[in-house]
């Protein structure tokens, strides 16, 4: 790939700058000098995949919608592709969120537009096997693949999802070459982009508006329909009487995410929780909503993800170009739906901040490895957690400060998958022509032959803190389904124990998915928000 550092991105509109000038109703809570009370028909807490889609549908149906977002509004003009700034301004906990024991790094967005502002644009429909599993094991109804397909189609049109037609960058191409050499399946990823410049900065906020994130699609259209956005406002609790919610109470936050002391209270008829996995359950826990079977925050899934680096003689420049354009499902269902943990293989971009911390280690060895950055292909495998008795996922807890913490323990069931995926991705990268390969394990050096790797990996200890593990997909924690002893929302997203509370985000997923989550959340939310709109208009 050419050196893109000389390229200038110019002539791009900022829809929010224009919208603000045109009088969109936006409240920057950090600037409030007094507590505020606002009234609405529907208040949506969180402006990501679920929140954005809900906002568009509900406000277009004529309802007065207020959207609450903890992050400060940041939009196109400010997306300057600086990694450090992006982590600080657009990610939960400055990209330093992790499982409670520190063993899994958790990337999650915190932005107007939620995680869709920083995601890598891969857009898959939910696998049939996953939806059937929910139907059979959780009593989810109306969400079979054939019933959801029209909603996927609608959202694919809305967000311009199509298979990536440009040649893959060398990072993705390594996955293809490896799979082809080994006779493994691979295919092209559909992406939600319109006029993509093929830059590779999806993770730091797309500077060209090509990525069809909520920030440039559903949220602007909700604003055009009269919605109000309250940003820099973190919902801390809900006022309720055990049967209905009456208001959401938010802390205004300053530029350093600290409470300013001012509050925003939104009184509404209907409440939509859309803060995403970890955060939605935490809000409901802080609010003390009825949870008779203590299910809140349980079954939180992560697609625990492993990394293997292949060092190629030629430059790969994996930080440039569409970050994810090819994938392999060779091992996604390797032992059926509910056997040994399966995993989807993709690649990840190699920007230096994130990649050097994933390379890990310290001192001169770390430095030597980091210095080969332009030559790395970075294959990843996402474990399909939640389909087995030994895969109950993590549990959300509240810290003594009331903030969310995820207790997720990498047990032997998941660790077996980590090891298996390390082996397979190493084999794939050697087959693709890597001169040496290193799996993301603290005791593994770069090794020059598949034979050496094949001998070493089975001897390594796989334990938290030793095998590297991360996540960019937080799912579950407010399990959907009919069985009230195990589930918190019905199949339309309504909270079982409160009449007017709905959960429209990734936290309702009863298991992980086996595909990147955004399109599942868009499709399910489009269906459930449309049903809600109909109900509220009746």
């Amino acid at each position, binding site marked *: 790939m050419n050196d*893109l*550092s000389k390229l*200038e*991105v*110019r002539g*791009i*509109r*900022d829809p929010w700058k224009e919208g603000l000038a045109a009088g969109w109703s936006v409240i920057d809570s950090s600037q409030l000098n007094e507590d505020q009370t606002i009234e609405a028909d529907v208040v949506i807490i969180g402006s990501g995949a679920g929140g954005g889609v809900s906002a568009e549908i509900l406000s277009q149906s004529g309802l007065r919608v207020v959207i609450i977002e903890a992050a400060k509004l940041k939009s196109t003009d400010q997306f*300057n*592709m*600086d*990694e*450090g700034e992006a*982590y*600080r301004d657009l990610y939960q*906990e*400055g*990209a*330093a*969120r*992790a*499982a*409670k*024991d*520190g*063993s899994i790094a958790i990337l999650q967005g915190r932005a107007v537009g939620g995680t869709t502002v920083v995601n890598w644009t891969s857009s898959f429909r939910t696998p049939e096997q996953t939806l059937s599993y929910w139907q059979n094991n959780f009593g989810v109804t109306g969400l079979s693949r054939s019933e959801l397909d029209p909603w996927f189609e609608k959202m694919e049109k809305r967000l311009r999802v199509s298979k990536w037609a440009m040649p893959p960058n060398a990072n993705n191409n390594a996955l293809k070459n490896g799979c082809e050499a080994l006779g493994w399946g691979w295919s092209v990823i559909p992406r939600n982009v319109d006029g993509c410049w093929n*830059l590779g*900065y999806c993770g*730091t906020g797309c*500077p060209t508006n090509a990525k069809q994130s909520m920030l440039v699609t559903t949220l602007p259209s909700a604003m055009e329909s009269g919605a109000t956005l309250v940003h820099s406002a973190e919902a801390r609790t809900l006022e309720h009487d055990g049967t209905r919610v009456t208001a959401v109470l938010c802390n205004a936050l300053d530029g*350093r*995410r600290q409470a300013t002391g001012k509050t925003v209270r939104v009184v509404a008829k209907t409440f939509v929780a859309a803060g995403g996995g970890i955060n939605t359950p935490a809000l409901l826990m802080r609010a003390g909503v009825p949870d008779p079977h203590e299910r809140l925050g349980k079954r939180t899934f992560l697609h625990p993800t492993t990394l293997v680096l292949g060092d190629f003689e030629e430059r790969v420049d994996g930080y440039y170009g569409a970050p994810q354009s090819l994938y392999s499902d060779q091992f996604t269902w390797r032992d059926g739906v509910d056997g040994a943990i399966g995993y989807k293989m993709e690649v990840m971009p190699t*920007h*230096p*901040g*994130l990649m*050097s*911390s994933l390379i890990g*280690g*310290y*001192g001169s060895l*770390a*430095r*030597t490895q*980091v*210095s080969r*950055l*332009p030559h790395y292909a970075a294959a990843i495998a996402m474990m399909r957690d939640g389909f087995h008795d030994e895969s109950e996922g993590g549990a959300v*807890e509240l*810290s*003594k*400060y009331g*903030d*969310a*913490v995820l207790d997720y323990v990498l047990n032997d069931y998941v660790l077996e998958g980590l090891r298996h995926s390390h082996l397979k991705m190493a084999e794939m990268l050697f087959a693709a022509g890597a001169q040496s390969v290193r799996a993301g394990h603290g005791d593994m050096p770069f090794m020059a032959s598949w034979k050496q790797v094949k001998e070493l990996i089975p001897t390594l*200890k796989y*334990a*938290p*803190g*030793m095998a590297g593990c991360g996540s960019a997909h937080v799912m579950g924690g407010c399990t959907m389904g009919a069985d009230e002893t195990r589930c918190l929302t019905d199949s339309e997203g309504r909270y079982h124990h409160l009449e007017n509370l709905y959960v429209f985000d990734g936290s309702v997923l009863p298991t992980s998915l086996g595909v990147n989550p955004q399109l599942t959340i868009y499709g399910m939310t489009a269906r459930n928000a449309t049903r809600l709109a109909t109900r509220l208009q009746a």
Partner: protein
Amino acid sequence: MNDTLALNRRAFLRAGLFGSALLAGGAGVASLSGCSTAKVPANGFLHLRQADIELLTPMVPALLAGALPNGDADVPRVLRRLDTLLDSPAQGGRDAIFQLYDVLQLGAFRWWTMDAWSHPGTLSTEQIDQGLANWSRKQNSFARLALNGLCQPLTLAWYTDPEIAKGTGYPGPPSKVIA
């Protein structure tokens, strides 16, 4: 292994590195390390305390060996970037990092991980490097989680500096010109 340390180790394991709960023996660790009074950030810092700075200053040249274009002169800049990075995690997550810095004040903990009782301030960079090598070879989950907790935030803080990022061979991002 003395009992206090064994106890703290279990407590620490439970609390986690970026985790929320305070060390069960948190107060104990703080008083053992003699820094229970030093809860306030050092002058000019948002979070790092004087004791942390004294602990990390000698360790950074070993931890980021080869990555400091100006050698030891870069250490203050590293610590500033770390301090800024530590401003973003939730309070509970930040507490866990500081528990790690606290526990590193304990000779016994350093002896267990680095085979060195002495405060890093009294060791040479080579000795610290050797200590880190011992630590990184430990086949113990807790020790390795702790080592990651020491290394990863520093690495992330440092390599997100645009100038340092270029030292990896990364040419840098395109530039954004606002209309």
